[in-house]
């Protein structure tokens, strides 16, 4: 759905799939593997303003809570309620049904400082 080759990545393991003036975001396959069994996702609310590099969601495993830092700034226009009811979707399909939220970008040029998939993979 959000093929990793076509995503931009943050160093903190979030991805953004940019389409026009908006983006879908989620966590990388590496991140879901490191976090392991995901049992809870705290989503932002539609209308929330999120900032690049600031906590916008929380991904929790059995024993730990990991902050999800928004890879880009903008206003939340859609949240993935499916991951709230079945958090394991983030493990099963981090670039598909396990996406976290969508934003209308407030500063699209921020994407320039994100990594390509090849660069992200190389940095792991």
């Amino acid at each position, binding site marked *: 759905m959000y093929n990793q080759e076509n995503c931009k990545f943050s160093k903190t393991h979030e991805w953004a799939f940019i389409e026009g003036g908006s983006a879908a975001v989620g966590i990388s396959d590496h991140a879901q593997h490191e976090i*392991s*069994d995901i*049992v*809870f996702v*705290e989503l932002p609310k539609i209308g929330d303003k999120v900032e690049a590099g600031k906590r916008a969601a*929380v991904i*929790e*495993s*059995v*024993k*730990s*809570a990991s902050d999800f830092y928004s890879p880009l700034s903008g206003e939340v226009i859609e949240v993935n309620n499916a991951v709230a009811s079945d958090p394991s979707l983030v493990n099963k399909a981090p670039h598909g049904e396990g996406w976290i939220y969508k934003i209308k970008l407030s500063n699209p040029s921020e994407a320039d400082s994100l990594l390509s998939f090849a660069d992200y993979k190389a940095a792991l």
Partner: protein
Amino acid sequence: MEHTLKKTSLYDACVKAGGKMVDFHGWLMPVQFEGIIAEHSAVRKNAGLFDVSHMGEVWFEGKDAHKFLQTLAANNFKNIPGAGAYSHMLNENGGVIDDLIAFCVTPEKFLVVINSATREKDVAWFKKQAVDFDVKVIDASDDFSMLALQGPNALNILEKLDPEIKKLPRFNIKSAQIFGEDIYITRTGYTGEDGVEILGGAQFINKLFSWCLANGFKPCGLGARDVLRFEAGYLLSGSDMDESRTPYEASFGWVVKMNKGVDFIGKAALLKQKEEGVKQKWQGFTLSGAIAREGALIFKDGKEIGRLTSATYSPLFKAICAGYAPADLAEGSEVEIEIRGRKVPAKSAKMPFYKIL
């Protein structure tokens, strides 16, 4: 730094079995293998194994071994070969130095199993207290490796190695021969399921580890172990209780045997506390819509009343936690737990969350 971390004799075997190794109080231990949920399920429904070789084992040997143990820890220990008991070892103020399980191997020889993180402190305390007794305190932790084999099918599988294994009563120890080696088996565990813990030399335990993997046991890590023990209401020494808390405050008053006829260390302080009553006690809570974590503050009617010492997601009970809060807080009371700056409604709950034994 990694090179300063200790490894158990099962380190290589754990890595080979897919263990994700982490620093646990100075030991490189598997926090998980396949995943905490799968491992938790294996122990609750079938059979799981845990490397617990980091735990400390100490011999009390001599004429006064039993008398010494009775003075050292609050529970009543029998000096009948095979008998064992869980207890708390207290300081003069009644504070919990550590919890332990002691087994009578012979009336003059007891095996005491202690926590790895407190091993040096515990052994120093044993030696300090032993001076007035005819007893030798021998730290044998480096001689023993240990596997915990837990779950409703654990003993069914282990019957192939020891046909008599199911006859061993709870909390008892026996010596046995497996693979031609003399080893110890105890009917104990830290999961709330039936099972045993087997103590032996490094080579033997490695052989047993391989045999168990080939015979249906799932390797499990410290992550699953912590969820299982907390569901079963077992305390984690150093987190749920320490020298600032007594067994009464920890809601483990049953380990205190006032009438055993021995003035055990801490008894006077506990007698006083028993009379006065405790202000705070360790108690459980459940919540929904968020998962609480250790250290979170507990509020009632806007006022801070306590702090969580254990908290986790549980595959059986979702978000569960426990901490010290006013002793008069009624079961079912509505409280709030602060999570990321937000107060989440929670309810005081009966512990243990899980009990079948």
